[in-house]
């Protein structure tokens, strides 16, 4: 479990970029398989399938970037 969890990345200095973008190189987003828990990279337009076990449900990952909460 612990090896999968990556350290918190602080937002790029000065940048207002507030979305959890893909790692710039690959262009794919990674999701978690609901069955085996493995990270699955899905490109746009690809069918929803776990590459390992073929399961049909994927969960979106919680972003590692900061989500800004507005003070209320």
């Amino acid at each position, binding site marked *: 479990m612990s090896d999968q969890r990556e350290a918190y990345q602080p937002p790029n200095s*000065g*940048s*207002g*970029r*507030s*979305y*959890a*973008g*893909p790692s*710039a190189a690959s*262009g794919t*987003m990674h*999701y978690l398989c*609901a*069955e085996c828990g493995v990270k699955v990279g*899905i490109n*746009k*337009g*690809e*069918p*929803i*399938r776990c590459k*390992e*076990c*073929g*399961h*049909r*449900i*994927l*969960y*979106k*990952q*919680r*972003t590692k970037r900061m*989500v800004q*909460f*507005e003070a209320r």
Partner: protein
Amino acid sequence: MVSSTPSISFDTLKRENLFRNPPKDKSAFPALLAAVQPHIDSFNAVTVEGGLLDLARQDIGVKSVFNGKNQNENLGDKLSLRVDKIYIGKPRISDRDKTSLRREIYPAECRERHITYRGRLTVKIGLRINNGSWISQDREIGNIPVMVRSNRCNLENLSPYDLVEHKEESEELGGYFVVNGIEKIIRLLIVARRNYPMAILRSSFAGRGKSYTQFGVQIRSVRPDQTSQTNVLHYLSDGNVTFRFSWRKQEFLVPVMMVLKALVETNDREIFDRLLAVKDRENSFLTDRVELLLRTYKGYQLYTKKETLQHLGERFRIVMGVALDMTDMEVGREFLRKVVLVHLEDPKDKFRLMLFMIRKLYALVEGSCTQDNPDAIQHQEILLGGFLYGMIIKERVEEYLDQIIKEVRREVMRGMLIDFNNKEHRTKIFGKVNENLGSSLEYFMSTGNLSSPSGLDLQQVSGFTVVAEKINFYRFISHFRMVHRGSFFAQLKTTTVRKLLPESWGFLCPVHTPDGSPCGLLNHLTHKCRITTAISDTSSIRKTLVSLGVTSPATASLPSSATTCIQLDGCIIGWCSLKLARVVSDTLRYWKVEGTHGVPLDLEIGYVPESKGGQFPGVYLFSQQARMIRPVKYLPLDKEDQIGPFEQPYMSVAVTPSEISPGESTHVEFDPTNILSILANMTPFSDFNQSPRNMYQCQMSKQTMGTPGTALRYRSDNKMYRLQTGQTPVVRSPLYSEYGLDNFPNGTNAIVAVISYTGYDMDDAMILNKSAHERGFSHGTIYKTEKLGWADEKRRGGTDSKNLFGFVNTEDIEAQIDDIHEMDDSTDEAKIFKQRAYEKLGIKEEWLKTVDIDGLPKIGQLVRDGDAVAVYHEVPKESDAGSTRPRNKVFIYKGSEEAYIEEVRLLGTEGGDNKPMQQITIKYRVPRSPNIGDKFSSRHGQKGVCSQKWPAIDMPFTESGMQPDIIINPHAFPSRMTIGMFVESLAGKAGALHGIAQDSTPFRFDEENTAADYFGHQLKVAGYNYHGNEPMYSGITGEELHADIYIGVVYYQRLRHMVNDKYQVRTTGKISDLTHQPIKARDSVTLRYFAIL
């Protein structure tokens, strides 16, 4: 003090261990599993190898069709069809899917993907051409919904540990179906007791025709496969008797003599002798009528069995829809098999029972016996969901055969030549028949509507299924214990069917029924009540009876001295004198509890003694399915006996050991609380409360914001409530632990002061301590799940996906977005320039605050009304490539409240179709801290609305410095008389002071040994006031209050009705002239309507 084993202590360590290490063998809470057992067992009984489906297919029999064009002379070749096997498979992924490693589908996936948990239905059809040999052919006829945790479910027999592994609760009960992701259960329905002829007085009987009277004897006769056929005997004013039945929703009348003569070879003398015992023959009322019965039948001029059968066969040939080559006599026999007293096989048995029914009818008319009350539980049984499901499958399969036959006939009529030996011809016929039986069962489960040609001998066509709502666990478990009288009775204006009758004692809970329209129609089983799902072994009963001196009808005809008849499941198995009947029933009871002489423990021995104008006497044994049964202690052996509602009115069951009267009582209750349902048992000290308050509590505990379960992560219900800070109650009964309700806390222990303090506590308002609120008291959450996508459209016929999630120009956005974000927007001009840049990309700036580059919302993101939660675009058509790029569009969040994105699920499809993502679900989390206007309630039907969150510094305090979490007004008590709440407050306070859980089982205290003394003493030992009062000081002035204040610990529930869902304030618009209140749109329409009038 307590007879059952579970302790009343908190068992914190044990509980913690169970949470951390779910058992790998079996559930720690067998009582919970037993509560849903009738549902699962009834389903299993249907689908098990050699189960009810097998009996059903035997009952369907052989159907045949001919291929000859001329239906009169040359019939042509005969094709016979029968069902060799009906098989339901476990839910599996379709064979088309090549990528999935694990082929089983589990219920959790169906809930998440909003699909149906179903298994493949296969029938093996047997075919025979003319007199050749049978050949079998498998036909797959669709997928049907399968009950969770049944023997067709992949979760069958899994341990709590394995259940958790499969994303279920550790205490997953099953017993329901998952249809389109929604959990549905088949309601338990009350139906007439099977195989018992009931004497009925019904005014509608008189309206059936000329000379019909209100008198009738009705029997709901049940086949071994659990399908039923009701037969009624009507008394005509001239003394004649007619036999009535309904077949495919049509009613038919036959003179009863015709049925009798068709059943066995008999003569008038024999009928007369068998109908009337020696002492009856002096009764001119009876002799006159029997004579008339025999005399009028002479008009038909049918003397022998053969003639009668032929006559019947000729009349019912079309109605029964039999094969063309059957003789009239065979059709007559088929009629007797399928319609007349179908629970019996042997015509001789049918004949005897029919005579008994005629005799009972005459007794009813004469007034020597009274009517049987069809509304009393004595004459009722439960139609179990699994059995109903099996009945529907049977009917559908039979219909399937009929369709094949119809198809052949249609082709033949059209002049087509059909050669049965030609395999191609056969497959062509099969191909034309609708082979999707699964969809009709799915329709039944999802709508609860029964579309059946026969009506299945039921009084309603809709309302068979309900959603097993998981508002909290109490509501969920109640669904499985719920019995409904039938929607037919809901329309009746009379209240007779709703009455609580003494017969229901111990079987239906007197407390747990809703108020309002379903009151008394929707009842709940007591927690000890069980429903039988299998036939008990009665193979040696007949022999045993003979050894007791009972005359068996198999060996001798009716002896003149014997007048009482002994029936086993509606089959006359003996005659004896009235005196002997009592001995027989007493002896059987002793042996049954003892477990000797082959008398099963769950046999029901209904001994009805002779009375002046009471129930028709006799000994009625019941051993079949669908009976309610409950344990009581049998005194002669000091052992457990199982008793049913038929026998109970004639037994003497003491409620408590002190109530036993020697020589009269035969049984004693194990516990007086056995008459209560699971929920009613959770009301502490309910015997101290005014009874309606306990009813209200049963209702309110089901509407509480509690804990629906622990596997919430894997559920996507439309709306789910969750109490964040649930606690185990200090005051609870041992049953609380027995049912494992600590897994599903439903409220919070609160310090409650009964005082009129702030002035904001009128009319059931209550004050919440603001600091308690800030510490998280009753903090709740609502989870809402929304489905987004186009999967439904595709199913409706569209071939390819027209839309895709995500941005149409992801690459461009990725490349430019950072730069655009950083663009200067200090001046108006720069702002416009920046906006243009976004527009050029086809997006809006605010979208990217809530949506990721994949077009899906960010987990944990706060969203408000109108925020974008998903981006999609149309797929550019290949034909117009190179033209304009499709626009990016968004799904938005609609809701007045702020919500957080909790989970986002990407849903794929089965099969190797390689379709891109067409559906996602978003789960929103709406935090709901207690608010002014929210509803709270104690466990005593004392609900109130929070009117103020009062600052802690202004709250009154005791000498020890305690402040109440909740203040309620003393005026809530005098009129409602919920003394149980006072006792709970006292017990809770003492329990909290000593660190112990308190037993709150009702009926444990009495006048000599009062609850107030018991708990008062505990308080005294802890150094507190004996009566639970304490001096208190005003939080505002610091002065001591003039009266001592009653303060203690009460378990409080937060109800799900919250102002945030309800407030609809408006300041403009129409108001009523009379009341100055706003008029709803609909009301204003009606007002206008009235003005016209």
